[in-house]
C-alpha cells in the first residue's frame, strides 16, 4: 500500500475538529440553559396546577402520578381533545368517545414532541449541534481522505469518529423522539471525547501498519464505534434514570427534590424501557464486533480467540451487557439495578478503550501511541 498522504488536508481536518469542538461547547451550554429554563417552566405549571387542585378538582393528583410527565394540563379539563368521531352519529352510551382511548398507541408517547411547549434554547442547541456535526463530519472525512484509508486506525481517530457517531445517532433519534433532555450529557460526552482526542492522543495522519491492512478494519471497527456510540447514549439515560427514580421516590413520600431539572426528563420507567431498546441494538452490534474481531484475529494471528487483553475486555463488556439483557426480564433485577448494569457496561467500554489500549501490553497496542 503506497502512502498517499495529504498533509495539507490533514491540517485542515485538525482545524475543523477544533471548530467542531468549540461548537459542541456552545451546544452544551445551550442544552444546559434549556434544561434549566424548561424545568423551571414545568415547575411553575406544576405549582399552579397544584394550586388548582387545592381549590377544587380532586382526581388530578392521581392522574399525575399515574401518567407522570406525559399528562398535560389539557386532560384535566376532562375534555374530548381527540375524540371527534362520535359527534356525527349518535351512538349507544357504551361507546362514548374519550381522549383516553388512544392512549398506549405507543409506549414511548412520553418521548414524543409536545406541540404546545416552546423551548427556544433547545432549538438553538439542536441547530448548533447539526452545524457542529457537519463540521465534525467534514473533519473526520477529510482525515480519512488525507490518510487514504478509513479514519479509525488509532486512538485519535477512534475517539473523533466515535464522537461523530454518538452525535449522529443522537441527532437521528431526535427526528423521532424528543430526547432533548439527554442533550447536555450527550453533547458533554462528545466534547470530552474530542478533547481527549486532541489533548491526550494527538496523532498526525499516517498510513496503516501491515496488521491493520484488512477490510475487517472497516467492518470490525466501524461496528465497534457504532456500538460504543449507542452505549454512550444509554449510559446517559441510565444515569438520568437513577436520578429520576430517586426523585420519584422522594416525591412519592411527599418530600421535595432538589433536582428540579429532572422535571424535564421522562419517568424512570420510560427511560428504562427506551434505553433497553437502544441497548439491545447496541448489544447486537457488540456481539457482531466480537465475532468480526474473532474472524479477523483468525486471519491475522492464526487463532480466533486467544485471550489477548483487548479480547478479554471485549468479552467482559459483552458479558456485562448480556447480564443487563437478562436483568430486564428477571424479577428483582429490573429498574435501578439494570441501570447500574448499563452504567457498569459503559465503564467497561471506556476502560477497554482508554486504559487497555494505552497501558496494557497486547496485540491491539498499535493504536497509534
Amino acid at each position, binding site marked *: *500500500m503506497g*502512502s498517499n*498522504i495529504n*498533509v495539507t488536508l490533514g491540517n485542515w481536518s485538525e482545524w475543523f475538529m477544533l471548530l467542531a469542538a468549540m461548537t459542541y461547547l456552545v451546544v452544551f451550554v445551550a442544552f444546559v440553559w434549556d434544561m434549566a429554563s424548561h424545568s423551571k417552566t414545568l415547575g411553575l405549571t406544576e405549582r399552579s396546577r397544584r394550586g388548582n387542585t387545592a381549590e377544587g378538582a380532586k382526581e388530578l393528583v392521581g392522574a399525575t402520578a399515574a401518567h407522570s410527565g406525559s399528562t398535560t394540563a389539557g386532560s384535566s379539563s376532562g375534555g374530548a381533545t381527540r*375524540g371527534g*368521531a*362520535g359527534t356525527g*352519529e*349518535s*351512538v*349507544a352510551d357504551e*361507546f*362514548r*368517545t*374519550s381522549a*383516553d*382511548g388512544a392512549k*398506549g*398507541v*405507543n*409506549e414511548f408517547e412520553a418521548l414524543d414532541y409536545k406541540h404546545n411547549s416552546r423551548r427556544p434554547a433547545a432549538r438553538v442547541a439542536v441547530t448548533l449541534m447539526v452545524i457542529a456535526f457537519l463540521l465534525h463530519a467534514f473533519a473526520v472525512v477529510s482525515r480519512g481522505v488525507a490518510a487514504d484509508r478509513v479514519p479509525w486506525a488509532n486512538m485519535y481517530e477512534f475517539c473523533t469518529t466515535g464522537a461523530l457517531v454518538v452525535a449522529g445517532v443522537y441527532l437521528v433519534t431526535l427526528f423521532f423522539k424528543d430526547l432533548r433532555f439527554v442533550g447536555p450529557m450527550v453533547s458533554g460526552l462528545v466534547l470530552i471525547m474530542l478533547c481527549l482526542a486532541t489533548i491526550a492522543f494527538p496523532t*498526525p*495522519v*499516517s*498510513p*496503516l*501498519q*501491515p*496488521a491493520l*491492512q*484488512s477490510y*475487517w478494519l472497516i467492518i470490525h471497527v466501524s461496528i465497534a464505534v457504532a456500538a460504543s456510540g449507542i452505549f454512550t447514549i444509554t449510559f446517559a439515560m441510565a444515569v438520568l434514570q437513577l436520578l429520576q427514580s430517586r426523585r420519584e421516590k422522594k416525591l412519592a413520600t411527599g418530600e421535595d427534590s432538589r433536582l428540579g431539572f429532572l422535571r424535564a426528563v421522562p419517568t424512570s420507567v420510560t427511560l428504562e*424501557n427506551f434505553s433497553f*431498546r437502544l441497548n439491545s441494538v447496541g*448489544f447486537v452490534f457488540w*456481539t457482531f464486533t466480537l465475532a468480526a474481531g*474473532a474472524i479477523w484475529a483468525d*486471519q*491475522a*494471528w*492464526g487463532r*480466533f*480467540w*486467544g*485471550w*489477548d487483553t483487548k479480547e*478479554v475486555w471485549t468479552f*467482559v463488556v459483552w*458479558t*456485562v451487557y*448480556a*447480564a443487563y439483557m*437478562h436483568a*430486564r*426480564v*428477571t*424479577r*428483582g*433485577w429490573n429498574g435501578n439495578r439494570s441501570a447500574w448494569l448499563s452504567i457498569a457496561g459503559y465503564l467497561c467500554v471506556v476502560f477497554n478503550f482508554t486504559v487497555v489500549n494505552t497501558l*496494557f501490553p497486547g496485540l491491539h497496542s498499535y493504536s497509534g501511541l
Partner: protein
Amino acid sequence: MTETRTPRPKKAQRSDVEVPALGPLGMARWAWRQLTKMSTALVLLLLLAIAAVPGSLFPQRVQDPDAVTSYIEANPTMGPWLDRLQLFDVFSSYWFSAIYLLLFISLVGCVLPRAVQHFKAWRSKPPRTPRRISRLPQYRKVMLGGRDGAAAPSPDDAVEQAAAALKKRGYRVQMQDLGSAAPSVAAERGMLKEVGNILFHVALLGVLVSVAIGALFGYKGQKIIVEGESFVNTLVDYDSFNPGTNFDPDWLNPFSVRLNNFQATFNRDTSDPRHYGQPTDFNADLTVTDEPGATPQDVNLAVNKPLNVNGTKVYLVGNGYAPVIRVTDGEGNVAYEGPVVTVPSDSVYTSSLTLKVPDARPDQLGFVGLLLPTAVSEPGEIPRSADPALNNPALILSSFYGDLGLDSGQPQNVYVLNTENLTELNSMTSANGPILLDGQHREVQLPNGKGSVEFLDVKRYVGLDVHSDPGRIPAFISFVLAFVGLIMSLFIARRRAWVRATTTEDANGVRCTVLEYGLLARGEDHRLGAEAEKLTALWTSLWEDRGVREFHLNSSDKA
C-alpha cells in the same frame, strides 16, 4: 430467560412447608432449581465478567509463557502464590472453568424445559378467547355495517374474514364458537421469537463445544524459514510444537513450503518523522507443495492473508534478518557456514545474534552480538542502527572459546549462549574491542589463532505459525446461528390477538356487527399499540363498503 416477573406465591408457600422433609433427592432438586433460576444465571454471568479481569492484569501462559516466567522471577514472593491461584492460567483455571460450566449447566437447565414447552405451545392451538377481551392491554372496538343501509356481515362471516386477514399478517389462527351468538378467533404470531432465543443459547453451547474440539484435536506449531530454505509439515521439522490434548502426530498433512523471497516495505514519508521507517507491508513469496508428489505452486503470504493447505493454516507472524556467516576454526577448516537467525529487538531491527560452533577445533567457538541493518557510527561511540532496511549492514560480535556444553545432551536455548565454561576472546569491554564486520571489513581473524569469521551476506527469514483447528468452522457456524437467534429473539414480537363478533343494533335501528379485538404481548413490545391500529386499518379496508365505525373507549370501559 425464564420470565419470572409474574409472582408465584403459591409455590413459595408450599416449599416453605416442605423444608423439614428435604432429603438428599429434595436437596438435589432444590439445588437444581436454584441453579436454573434466572437470577443465578445472571449472577454467574457477572461473576464470569469479573473472573475474566485478572486475565488482563497478569501475563497469561496462553499469551506469552516467557512473560509469565519473567514475572515470577521479578516477583519471587508473590509470583508463586499467584501461580498457585492459577492467575497466570485464568482461562483454564479451575475457578474460571467452574463458573462457565455452571453457567452452561444453568443455561441447559433453563433452555431445555423452555424448548419442550415451546414445542408443545407450537403444536397446540392458540389459547381460547378470554371472556373479557376488554381487559387486554390493547383493546379496540369497531361497528361494522350501517353505511347507506348496507347489511353488516354476519358475526360468523366477520370472524372468518378476520381470521383470513390475520393469517395473511402472519398470525396462526383458531376460530371458536362459530355459529354461536359470539363467535371469535384466537390468533398468535411471533412463535419464532422464542425459537430464536433457544437457538441463541444452544448455539452458544455449540461455540463452547467447538472451542473444546479445537483444544482436543488441533495443533499449533512455529517454524522459522530463511530465504531459500524449505519446511515440511512433520513433527521433526518444527521449531516448537503444541499439540492439542488428544492430537496424534500422524494426522499432520505433509505439505511443504519453500521461502523464495521476503520483502518488507517501510514508510518513506520524510514529512512525517513520527511514522518514518514504520513497516507498511510484509510480503513473502512461497512455493507450496500440497502433498508429496503434487505440483508446486507459487503463492504470496501477507500478514492478513494466511495460507490454507487443506484446512491447515499458515500465518506470517514474524520476520527478521539472517546474516550468512562463515567460521573457520583454528585448524583452518570451515566449522560453520550458513545463515544465522537473529532476533529483532526494536523498530529499526537492531537484532541480537547468537552463534554456537560446536564443530570448531581445537576449541568450540561461540559468538554473541548484534546485527545492525543500517549501521551508523559516530567517532567514539558504539555503532547503532538508524533504519530497518539493509543500507549498511554490520555485525558487532563478542567471541568465546571453550566448552559450549552441548555435548551433555541437555536441551539449550539456541538464542542464549551460556558463557560459564567459555573464555572470552574479545568483546565490547575487552581491550581489543568487539569484532566489527561490515561491507568494507568482510573478514576478521580471531585472537590467539582461534580462527576467523567472515560476513558473507544477509538473508531475510520469516516466522510462520502453522495451525490446525478442527473447531474453527463449527465455531463459526455456531456463532452465525447464535447471531441469527439473537436478532430473532430481540426483534420479533410475540403477540396474541383475539377478535370477537356480536350482533347489535345501532342508534338508527340498523342491525350491525360489533367487532371487539384485543392484543397481548409476550415480554416487551412497544409496538403493540401500533399493531392494534394496524388491525383497525385492516378491518376498515375489509368492510369499508359496508361501513366501519371506530369507537374511542373510555378507560372505564376496560372492565
